[in-house]
C-alpha cells in the first residue's frame, strides 16, 4: 500500500525467481518483493544442489576426495584441487617438488582466466546480450580446456593434483601449445574490452548499480573480485602467500566504486595479471620430479588444519580434522560464493528487477560451490 499520497493504491507483488530461471546460473532461487519494478525485499533460497559433499568427504579416504573437489566449483576444478591438496599437505607436512609447484601455478592461473571469461560472458548474458560475448568467451575457453585435457586427460573435471605433486607430467607438446595460447589471449582480451568496456549501454547498466562500500564488503566477509572491486587490497596470493606465488611479479587490480562495472573491470585486470604470471611461469619452470612418493595407505597425523587459497571467485578454504585414520574426521569447505551471497539482499534493495540479475551475475556464483 505504497504511494498513498498520490491517491493511487498500489500493492507489492512477490515474484519467485528460480530455481529454474535463465539467469540464476543454476538452481538458485530468489523470492523478490516488488513495488512496480523496484525491489523492496529479496530473500535468497539455496540448497537446490546440496549434494552432501561434506558428508561424502567424511566417508571417503583423503585421496578419494580429490575428484569430489572438482565438482565443487565446476568451472575451476584445478584451483579446487589445489586448495584441497595443499590443506592435506599442510596437515601431513609434505614437501612439493619445484616442478610440480610450477605446473600447479600454470593450471590455476589458466583456470582463473577461464573463470573470468565465463563470469563476464554470463554477466553480459544477464544484461541481455544474446549470448554473443558468452560464446566468444567459450570459444577461447575451449583452447584452454584443450590444455587441461593434454595434461590431465579430462576437459572439465581434471582430477589432476595429488598430495605432494601432480598426477602426470606435462606431455612433450604442452609447453609449445601453452605458449601459443598465452600469446593469443591478450588479443582476445583486447577484443572483449573493445566490445564492452566503453559500450554505452554496458556503462549505464553497470555504473552505480549494486554499490558495495568497502566497510560493508569486509563486514559481510566478501572475498575475491567482489571485495577488490570495492577497493580493498586483499589478495591471498599476496597477503598470505602460498605455494610459490611470492616469486612472481604481478599486481592486484582494484576497483574504486564497488559497482557492477568495477567488478567487470577487476576481472578483466585479473585476466591480464594471470597472463603475466603465466609468462613468468613458462620462463621459470624447471625440469625434475613432479611428485613425492607417499605410502600406499595414506594416514595423516592427528590434528586440524585450515588452508585457504585465492580461487578465482574468492577465498576457498578447506578445514580438515584428522583423527589419524584414512578418512578425514571432518571435511569442511569454506566456499567463496556461498559467503559472498550473504550480501546479495543488501546490494539489491532499491534497484530494479533487471539490476538483480546483473548484480547476481557480477557476484559470479556457481551453485555446486554454494550448496556443496
Amino acid at each position, binding site marked *: 500500500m505504497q504511494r498513498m499520497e498520490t491517491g493511487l493504491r498500489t500493492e507489492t507483488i512477490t515474484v519467485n525467481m528460480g*530455481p*529454474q*530461471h*535463465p539467469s540464476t546460473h*543454476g*538452481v538458485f532461487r530468489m523470492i523478490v518483493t516488488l513495488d512496480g519494478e523496484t525491489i523492496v525485499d529479496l530473500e535468497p533460497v539455496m*540448497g*537446490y*544442489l*546440496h*549434494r*552432501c559433499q561434506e*558428508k*561424502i568427504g567424511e566417508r571417503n579416504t583423503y585421496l578419494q576426495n580429490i*575428484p*569430489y573437489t572438482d*565438482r565443487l566449483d*565446476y*568451472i575451476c576444478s584445478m584451483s579446487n584441487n589445489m586448495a584441497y591438496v595443499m590443506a592435506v599437505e599442510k596437515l601431513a607436512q609434505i614437501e612439493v617438488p619445484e616442478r610440480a609447484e610450477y605446473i600447479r601455478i600454470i593450471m590455476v592461473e589458466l583456470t582463473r582466466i577461464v573463470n573470468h571469461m565465463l563470469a563476464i560472458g554470463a554477466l553480459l548474458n544477464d544484461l541481455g546480450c544474446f549470448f554473443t560475448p*558468452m*560464446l566468444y568467451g*567459450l*570459444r577461447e*575457453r*575451449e583452447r584452454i580446456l584443450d590444455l587441461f585435457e593434454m595434461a590431465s586427460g579430462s*576437459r*572439465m*573435471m581434471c582430477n589432476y593434483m595429488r598430495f605432494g605433486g601432480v598426477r602426470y607430467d606435462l606431455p612433450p607438446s604442452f609447453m609449445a601449445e601453452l605458449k601459443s595460447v598465452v600469446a593469443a589471449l591478450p588479443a582476445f582480451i583486447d577484443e572483449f574490452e573493445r566490445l564492452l568496456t566503453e559500450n554505452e549501454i554496458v556503462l549505464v547498466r553497470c555504473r552505480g548499480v549494486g554499490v558495495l562500500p568497502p566497510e560493508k564488503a569486509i563486514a559481510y566477509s566478501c572475498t575475491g573480485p567482489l571485495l577488490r572491486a570495492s577497493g580493498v587490497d586483499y589478495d591471498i596470493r599476496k597477503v598470505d602467500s602460498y605455494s610459490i606465488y611470492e616469486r612472481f611479479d604481478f599486481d592486484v587490480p582494484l576497483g574504486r566504486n564497488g559497482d557492477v562495472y568495477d567488478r567487470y573491470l577487476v576481472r578483466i585486470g585479473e585476466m591480464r595479471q594471470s597472463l603475466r604470471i603465466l609468462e613468468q611461469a613458462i620462463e621459470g619452470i624447471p625440469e625434475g620430479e613432479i611428485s613425492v612418493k607417499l605410502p600406499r595407505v595414506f594416514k595423516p597425523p592427528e590434528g586440524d588444519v585450515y588452508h585457504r587459497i585465492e580461487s578465482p571467485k574468492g577465498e576457498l578454504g578447506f578445514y580438515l580434522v584428522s583423527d589419524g585414520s584414512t578418512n578425514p574426521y571432518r571435511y569442511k569447505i569454506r566456499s567463496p560464493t556461498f559467503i559472498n551471497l550473504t550480501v546479495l539482499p543488501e546490494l539489491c534493495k532499491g534497484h530494479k528487477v533487471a539490476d538483480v540479475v546483473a548484480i547476481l551475475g557480477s557476484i559470479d556464483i556457481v*551453485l*555446486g560451490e554454494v*550448496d556443496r
Partner: protein
Amino acid sequence: MTEEEYIAEQVRRNVIITTIDKIYNWGRRSSVWPMGFGLACCAIEMICAAASRFDFARFGMEMMRPTPRQADLMIVAGTVSNKMAPQVVRLYDQMPEPKYVLAMGACAISGGPFKDTYNVVNGIDTYIPVDVYVPGCPPRPEALIEGFIKLHQLIEGQTILTSPWYRKEAEREMPVPTLGPKGLVLPGEDE
C-alpha cells in the same frame, strides 16, 4: 473383398500414413527445442555444446527456451537433489506433448558419484520417464550430440498412429513428490 483388394487397400493406407509420419517426424526431429535449464556441472558442457566448437544449432536446436511451455526436450543436466526433484517433475508436467527427456551425466542417470546420499535422487527416472541416457561425468559435448542423434532416431521410429500423446486416456502427467521430514514423498504414499 478379395485378398488382393485387401492388400492393395492396406498398402494404400500405409503409404498415406507413412508419408504423413515421415513429414511429421521430420518436422519434429529437425526442430527439437531444449529447455534452457541447467542443474549442475553438466550444464556447462551443455552450454559448450551450444557454443562455437560443437554448435548444436546445426540441428536447429539452438532455440533454448527459458519456459517449459515452449520446449520439446528437457535436458536434465546434473545432479537432482531432493529439494530440486519436485521442481523438475513440475517442469516436466508443464511441458506440452510430445515431450522428451534426456538424462545427461551420471548424476541424472543414477546419482553418479553422489549416489545413495541423504539429499540426492538416485536417477531422475525414478520420477519422470527418460528417453535418452548420456553417460559421462560430465559427458563431453560430442557425447551429448550423440545423444541428440539417438533422440532423432527415436523420433524417426515413432508413428502418429500409436503415439500416446494424442489420446485422451493416456495420462502422461507425473505425480509431483513433496518434501517430507525424511525425504521425498510421492502423493498417496504414507507420510
